[in-house]
């Protein structure tokens, strides 16, 4: 009965995963959950066996260690001899007496993790599709490292990480404002810094230790058109150059450093309303950078992981609650704020006459 329930869940997840590939609108996304809604009982694996294997393996390993280290010598001799008689064949095993229990524990943990991952992986994929649909985004396929190189040729912002750079996720969106509309690409830029440190111990031997630090920058790229060669940096400089320029606002000076191709470019761009818009955006987003390149394209990047993704607060256990969650509009609030500000920058930099 238990096995059959787990098999049913496996079948359900497999079929839902297959159907997910064909989902291209909200109606088909909601229809995807129909088999889950029809499922009898909660969509939860019965993990009695994997837990028993894991805990049993750990307990037996503990028992063997206690026996081996003589901690059980206080037991009556008959009982101790009986225990030794039971475990003695284990010492004949080629990989040592611990090996069957280690194997038992590993299999138990693997079963638990794979089931958890199967369920969570599907929920994350559905949630990701829901976010794309709710925010009118279309996922684009790309070669992660080649795309990072392409972006790096266009913007200094991607000149980060001495070990590895990749665009882990890319999608296309469209913003329709009151006065302007524009297409943009939303991305997750992943870069890795490699650090090698050599230390010498008291005996004069040197040890080399290599560590890898992973970072993510999230952002949008779009064609701006009204200004070029301008960098507004709320985070570290990654090779951007230009003349240092400061607007009148003391608060803005605390938040950003401006490097412009010429003072005229900066003076024309930084109207008071623009300064105020950027100050407000800088308070909402972490480590905000804006780079306008020589082709008048804009690259806006931030460190907030919820800029391009929002974690799913529910699982498939209660399919009805999950469906209700999907039916609500989940906006990427920080992305919306950035797009609104970009629109305002366009409004303040265009010519009304």
């Amino acid at each position: 009965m238990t096995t059959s329930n787990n098999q049913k869940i496996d079948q359900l997840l497999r079929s839902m995963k297959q159907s997910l590939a064909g989902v291209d609108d909200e109606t088909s996304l909601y229809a995807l959950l129909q088999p889950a809604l029809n499922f009898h009982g909660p969509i939860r694996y019965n993990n009695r066996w994997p837990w028993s294997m894991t805990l049993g393996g750990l307990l037996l390993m503990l028992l063997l260690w206690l026996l081996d280290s003589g901690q059980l010598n206080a037991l009556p001799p008959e009982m101790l001899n009986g225990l030794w008689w039971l475990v003695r064949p284990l010492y004949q095993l080629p990989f040592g007496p611990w090996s069957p229990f280690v194997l038992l524990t590993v299999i138990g943990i693997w079963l638990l993790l794979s089931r958890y991952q199967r369920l969570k992986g599907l929920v994350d994929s559905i949630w990701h599709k829901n976010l794309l649909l709710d925010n009118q985004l279309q996922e684009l396929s790309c070669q992660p490292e080649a795309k990072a190189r392409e972006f790096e040729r266009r913007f200094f912002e991607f000149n980060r990480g001495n070990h590895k750079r990749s665009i882990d996720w890319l999608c296309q969106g469209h913003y329709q404002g009151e006065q302007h509309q524009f297409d943009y690409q939303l991305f997750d830029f992943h870069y890795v810094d490699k650090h090698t440190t050599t230390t010498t111990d008291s005996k004069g031997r040197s040890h080399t230790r290599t560590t890898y630090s992973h970072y993510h920058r999230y952002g949008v790229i779009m064609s701006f058109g009204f200004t070029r060669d301008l960098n507004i940096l709320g985070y570290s400089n990654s090779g951007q150059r230009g003349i240092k320029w400061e607007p009148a606002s003391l608060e803005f000076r605390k938040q950003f450093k401006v490097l412009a191709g010429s003072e005229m470019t900066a003076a024309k761009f930084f109207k008071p309303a623009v300064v105020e818009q950027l100050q407000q955006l800088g308070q909402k987003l972490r480590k905000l950078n804006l780079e306008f390149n020589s082709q008048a394209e804009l690259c806006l990047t931030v460190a907030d992981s919820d800029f391009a993704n929002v974690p799913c607060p529910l699982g498939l256990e209660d399919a009805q609650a999950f469906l209700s969650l999907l039916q609500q509009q989940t906006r990427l609030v920080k992305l919306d704020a950035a797009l609104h500000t970009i629109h305002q920058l366009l409004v303040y930099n265009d010519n009304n006459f």
Partner: protein
Amino acid sequence: MSSLLVLVILLAAAVLAVIVIHNSIIGRYNATQRAWSDVIAQERQKNKILPSLEQVAAQYSEYEKSLLEKVTALRSSLAALSSDTIDTKSLAKAEGHMSEVVKGLNIAVEAYPELKANELFSKLMHEITEQQENIGAAVRIFNRNVELFNTGIEVFPNSMVNNMFTHKHRLDTFDDSEASAGFEYKPNF
């Protein structure tokens, strides 16, 4: 010997602190003065729209004669503005004339709805909206700088450095007397 060294170090630290405080007061003062210049520069941007305003007003002058007079009054108040001295009263006067012009335009739109379809009028209204937003932002930036400057000369030990060396006085923020007249509440600063 060591106590003399400590005394010299303390004295040097005190002199350095006085220099840093003095320079920060001057820096804030200059930034505030520049913020005021930005307000005036934005206010003078209205000169850019005066020809279009006059053109629109001339088209409807038969029915809306007072609009041209308001535009003329705005032109003269803009000419009286100075970016060298912080004169919030002249700015308030120019802003008052601008709000009269906007009121005149709104009355013209109510009387002649076809104005809304007029391309020049529509561009003009967009420009006026942006200019007003920019002036609003410039004034807010100026007021925030004034606040930071005033705080910078009044907190201790800055107040001591200011009284002894820098000699700067509190600056007034800009407030819209027309808007504040609508409130019964008056803060007792």
